[in-house]
């Protein structure tokens, strides 16, 4: 009995060895396992699903189609999964995708804590992680890796845009309502830096857990603080609920300004212009910029019934850029592809002269916008009025101020 089992075991080992040898042989032929596989890992159903989620998967698929479906003569495959906004789920999914699933690049990765979990895995497995949906600046500072790119926006850029504009309008006293995890704390820290360095003052800081439906307590406390600005350092469903409460308690129409530091097109869509009008926001991209963006966005609208968020446009653009880099490198091996991604400029409907820095930050122009009034809006999704362009060199944290270990020469 034992002998039979042993001989079976022997055969199994032999078979495995042969398969491994065959796989190794395939790797030598530039594209690992004969397919370039892109995994979209995102919040498919939670409070961040509207600006990422299924729309991001669709955007990546559009990029693959526009690229022709093949790179270096090998097919491109897109898979997707829901990390349910859990860092542990994201981490184990990434491990599974990188080892068994043979995924070459993971995209979207919002929110921040899931991105932080996956970039570590990407470095360990020498694959690529492109984060379009996350905001924490840690991705290009303490936690930067040679295998990751931070593509669309970050807490520094958002705080810099909106907070700067409001302080310049003379609104000097601030109260923060902050979601209690890495993203909210980073956003709050970056915004406070902007407020204080421009002569403003922070009166109080309130926090709330992720996925809060009742903001009455925080709003009433913020109202009582007397601050000129009530800044929301949260995103997605949390921001929507907070603004709804502010509107219910007449705060939005009082002399206090409610500022959503991170506000997406989809958030404005669920709030309705009646409630959201007048809000200032910073955005990386808007569907109604140019003929090129409108054309792409209409295609997206047709496929998803929604206009794209900046994160979703970033999913499209980053996937195209990745595929171009694979082609230019002649392989899907991560370090060769990363080198190409960093050396090639990005010029498409998402960015003009976008550049991925040494620390993985993709720098491009950002925009300051204001939500239109119902009267100004000419059609559905006509929500933003672009007030100012923040040039790429001012929009993001200068590389010299960061502490990414990959940056050798800071001056």
């Amino acid at each position, binding site marked *: 009995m034992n002998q039979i089992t042993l001989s079976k075991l022997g055969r199994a080992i032999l078979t495995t060895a042969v398969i491994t040898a065959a796989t190794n042989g395939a790797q030598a032929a530039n594209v690992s396992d004969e397919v370039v596989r892109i995994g979209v890992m995102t919040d498919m*159903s*939670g*409070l961040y*699903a*509207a600006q990422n989620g299924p729309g991001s998967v669709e955007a990546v698929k559009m990029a693959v189609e526009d690229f022709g479906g093949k790179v270096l003569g090998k097919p491109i495959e897109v898979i997707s999964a829901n990390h349910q906004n859990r860092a542990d789920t994201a981490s184990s999914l990434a491990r599974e995708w990188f080892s068994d699933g043979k995924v070459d690049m993971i995209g979207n990765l919002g929110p921040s804590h899931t991105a932080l979990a996956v970039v570590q895995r990407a470095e360990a497995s020498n694959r690529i992680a492109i984060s379009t949906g996350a905001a924490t600046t840690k991705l290009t500072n303490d936690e930067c890796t040679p295998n990751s790119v931070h593509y669309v926006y970050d807490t520094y850029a958002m705080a810099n845009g909106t907070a700067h504009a409001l302080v310049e309008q003379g609104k000097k006293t601030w109260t923060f309502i902050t979601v*209690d995890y890495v993203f909210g704390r980073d956003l709050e820290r970056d915004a406070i830096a902007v407020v204080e360095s421009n002569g403003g003052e922070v009166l109080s800081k*309130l*926090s*709330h*857990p992720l*996925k809060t*439906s*009742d903001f*009455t*307590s*925080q709003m*009433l*406390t913020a109202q*009582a603080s007397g601050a000129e600005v009530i800044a929301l350092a949260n995103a997605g*469903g949390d921001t*929507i*609920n907070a603004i*709804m409460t502010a509107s*219910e*308690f*007449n705060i939005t129409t009082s002399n206090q300004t409610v500022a959503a530091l991170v506000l997406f097109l989809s958030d404005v869509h*669920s709030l*309705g212009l009646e409630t959201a009008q007048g809000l200032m926001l910073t955005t990386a991209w808007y569907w109604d910029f140019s003929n090129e963006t409108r054309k792409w966005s209409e295609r997206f609208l047709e496929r998803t019934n929604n206009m794209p968020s900046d994160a979703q446009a970033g999913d499209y653009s980053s996937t195209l850029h990745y595929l171009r880099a694979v082609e230019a490198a002649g392989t899907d091996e991560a370090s060769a592809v990363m080198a190409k991604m960093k050396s090639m400029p990005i010029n498409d409907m998402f960015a003009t002269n976008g550049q991925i820095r040494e620390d993985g930050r993709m720098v491009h122009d950002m925009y300051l916008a204001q939500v239109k009034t119902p009267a100004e809006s000419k059609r559905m999704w006509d929500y933003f009025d672009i007030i100012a362009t923040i040039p790429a060199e001012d929009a993001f944290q200068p590389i010299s101020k960061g502490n990414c270990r990959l940056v050798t020469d800071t001056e």
Partner: protein
Amino acid sequence: MDEIFGFPPQLLFAQIFMGLINGSFYAVLSLGLAIIFGLLRIINFSHGAMYMLGAFSAWFGLQYLGINYWIALVLAPLAVGLFGLLIERTMLRRIRHVDHLYGLLLTFGIALILEGALVQFFGVAGQRYPTPDELQGGINLGFMFLPYYRAWVIIASVVICLVTWLIIERTKIGAYLRAGTENPDMVQAFGINVPLMTSLTYGFGVALSAFAGVLAAPIVSVSPYMGSNLIIVVFAVVVIGGMGSLLGAVITGLALGVIEGLTKVFYSEAAGLVIFMIMIIVLLVRPAGLFGRPE
């Protein structure tokens, strides 16, 4: 004295008031749970899902059938109550004579199925239910701005709780019900249809939670998971009040809402914990709950 413990009194009053509003939801929901447990001995884990169904029926009615808020406030509990009746008749009745745990598992499963089905159809993002025109706006109370709708929530909840309590404690039907749970065979011998009565009771408890759901629809976003976010807290309320004690459920619901509101002022990080800490203490000191009688 213009500050209480370092906080302006306006803020404190406002938080107590908001706590009372949240407490109203706890009260109506835990009352339904207490009725179902007290009279049927079912630990109804699908209570949160029924609350969500109530809100969704109101939203659906407005969106697709043009049914306004006031009619929905009556129709939605009726519809969801009927659905509850159906569940009791077809499923819960079959496991009445086995351990409570089976009822818990069954109702929990029903909740998961309902949530999953609604996610499939409507997605997870919340739907907006507009505040009815009659209750738009609000009034400045001096210490806070009180939206009319929130005031209505408190009034409606207190009235519905009072009426329910009166029916069960002070009417003949209530007396039959209470007798039926003590000794079903004896009550049946008097010619009263006990099985029908239990079905109706379950339906009524479920209708109460649907009522709370419609009340909540204009102030929270209507989403498939709105009930599961609340149900654990509501169970804690029932445990603290004493399983099956109706008055206990209502008073504890309102009181815990206020305590939670105050915690948000003094130490907001503990706001999510405070109810469970109280639950642990109550279970240690008075295992039958504050208002419950030891069995």
